[in-house]
């Protein structure tokens, strides 16, 4: 009848990818929590959905859309800005995502990003795994088990959706919220861990110093005189009364070089140095005051929900 056949390897690959989307789509929802921004979410269990934290605006009256016309209300259980994840509960019955074996991942594997749009239609984007690395800490101080960067177009509304392998098993949750330059994927192992913590306490602890600061360049002469390797540090511009830093003796104008042995070159480094494990622990604070190095000991506090 025609010269066209469906028996090619290319057609087989295409069919497998479409099958993967079809298999996973029932576990992908549209999350309506922000009138300015579309987002997706993945079903972690029958009544639990994980989405991205930065796409949560309204904490009440969150609506999720399943396939087609079906919608359901969802309540926010907790949110963790440090890993950009939020946990929702719904009465609707969802199909939990099939989970991929993260150990088998290799750079070059074909991957799919899945989302659901506001009309309830599943949407997909294809690419390859571009880089994989070990554990890392986000710019907001969150611990992520593995660094996963897919090379694909993560369109508007795809944040909070799934990154899946070519069989439709989920590798993690995609987000634009952890890097300004590139979409990244929070691995499913981290998603599960954070969801459990949010389920238990509603939030992830973060360390608190009680200072306002800004980055400063360290003059070359001072660096060579005092044997400092880093080129910049952060200067304290405000100290919260009775906060951990004030109790430790920190003053406005102090230049903070390191916390707990981690160099502080900008304020992101400070957030990274204040992971949940530091809350309630004593940490060494290396300070530059009046041209001299000093050491303070600070009892790290816990940052409250509204960031104070």
């Amino acid at each position, binding site marked *: 009848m025609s010269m066209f056949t469906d028996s*090619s390897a290319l*057609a087989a*690959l295409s069919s497998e990818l479409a099958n*993967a989307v079809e298999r996973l789509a029932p576990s992908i929802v549209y999350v309506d929590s922000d009138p300015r921004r579309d987002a997706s979410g993945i079903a972690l269990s029958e009544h639990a959905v994980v989405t991205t934290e930065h796409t949560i605006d309204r904490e009440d009256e969150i609506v999720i859309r399943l396939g087609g016309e079906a919608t359901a209300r969802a309540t926010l259980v907790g949110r963790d800005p440090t890993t950009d994840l939020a946990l929702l509960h719904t009465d609707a019955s969802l199909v939990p995502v099939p989970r991929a074996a993260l150990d088998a991942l290799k750079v070059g594997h074909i991957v799919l990003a899945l989302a659901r749009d506001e009309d309830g239609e599943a949407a997909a984007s294809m690419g390859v795994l571009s880089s994989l690395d070990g554990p890392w800490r986000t710019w907001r101080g969150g611990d992520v088990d593995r660094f996963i960067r897919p090379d694909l177009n993560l369109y508007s509304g795809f944040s909070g959706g799934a990154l899946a392998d070519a069989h439709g098993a989920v590798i993690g949750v995609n987000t634009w919220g952890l890097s300004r330059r590139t979409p990244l994927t929070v691995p499913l192992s981290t998603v599960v861990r954070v969801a459990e913590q949010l389920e238990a306490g509603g939030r992830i602890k973060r360390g608190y110093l009680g200072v306002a600061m800004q980055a400063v360049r360290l003059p070359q002469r001072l660096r060579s005189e005092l044997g400092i390797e880093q080129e910049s540090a952060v200067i304290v511009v405000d100290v919260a009364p009775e906060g951990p830093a004030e109790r430790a003796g920190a003053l406005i104008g102090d230049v903070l070089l390191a916390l707990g042995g981690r160099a502080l070159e900008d304020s992101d480094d400070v957030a990274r140095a204040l992971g949940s494990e530091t809350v309630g622990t004593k940490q060494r604070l290396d300070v530059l005051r009046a041209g001299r190095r000093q050491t303070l000991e600070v009892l790290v506090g816990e940052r409250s929900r509204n960031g104070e």
Partner: protein
Amino acid sequence: MASDVDADLAALAERMRAWTVRIHEARGRSMGSGVIWTDDGLVVTNAHVVRGARTTVEFPNGRFERAALIARDPDCDLALLRLASELEATPVVTRSAAQLRAGELVAAVGNPLGLSGALTLGTVQRVNAKWVIADVRLAPGNSGGPLVDTSGRIVGINSMIARGLALAVPADRVVAFLRAHAGEKRAQPAA
């Protein structure tokens, strides 16, 4: 498997290039791409590619031929040209947008950025009432060219780029457009 996929892609590109022409306006500027639809000389392109009545079609082998505009519909962004001579072309095969699945592989061929017969590969993102929306890289010059599935069936005519996505007029719509206008000798003057 990977080498089989490579070979299939190369064969697909070759087949698509045989159908894909470059469309020039009267003054010789290249405006976009077109698809040789039938062996009796009908060429489909976008309405926004052909604005004047005089058009020249450039074949993949470098030959030029005049074409008459016989229908143009800006609403669905389609235009139909008729070449003076018949061709030894294999008629295209189309596939309905309703059969497309998200995640399926699709390829676009066209003449973007001054290139000839450039191939880009991606996936169907979704299909709505008006468009086949694909995660395929297009550039100006792809307009009017084909979007095909892995078997070389035309699923749409590439028409627009929106937020990095390819928007193609569904093949069903093209078929309906041809059915309505293929018998016409030349375009009616615009009202």
